[in-house]
């Protein structure tokens, strides 16, 4: 799946959900796997940086 689900986690960074090929839609996975009360965004995988050197410093803009 070429989409990712992004939300701000409790540590102030961002968590990125990588969907599996499980028969659920990206929206269904978001509804199930994003923690309650968290606002999330569905983005293209190409929008996620591949250089993870400063991964814990990533922010949602």
């Amino acid at each position, binding site marked *: 799946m070429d989409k990712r*689900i992004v939300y701000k*986690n409790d*540590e102030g*960074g961002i*968590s*990125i*959900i*990588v*969907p*599996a*090929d*499980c*028969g*659920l839609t990206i929206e269904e*996975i978001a509804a*199930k*796997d994003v923690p309650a009360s968290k606002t999330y965004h569905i983005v293209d*995988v190409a929008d*996620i940086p*591949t250089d*993870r050197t400063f*991964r*814990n410093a990533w922010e949602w803009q």
Partner: protein
Amino acid sequence: MASIKLKGNTSGEITIDVPAVAGANTLTLPATTGNVVTDSATQTLTNKTLTTPNIDSAEFATVSGTAPLYAARAWVNFNGQGTVAIRQSGNVSSITDNGTGDYTVNFTTAMADADYTPIVLNAPGYGVSLPTVALANLNNSTFTEVTPTTSAFRVSIRTSGNAAYDAKYMYVAIFR
């Protein structure tokens, strides 16, 4: 008790008995040529789908002994480096990349309880000088415990130098 008796051309015969209880039950025979499976002898079923079977004690033909056999309830193989991606999985709806070397495995169908056993292996990508270890139920940012739930569990990777690390190969299996 009523019964139907069929006699063959030779001395053999078969008797179909009606159970000695009240009620009208229907026994529908298949509309194809074949043999009826009974519980009286060992029989081979080929290419049959058993939907939610209740198997008391599974013994696979290639397994010796009668110790019970438990299959994995969920599994996933994913890459934690670069573009984090799932290679293959079963009963896993997603993984969550929480930060460096910090992942949550989310189950498609929840476990019966949170007392399952996760088996986790990681391979950092060889050429890396530091050995790595997978630590279950760990938030790698705060270094605090994350209680597993019926729907997800967390795993983190740290090096022998106690630094968070993205593993190239992550292998997870869940047994319950």
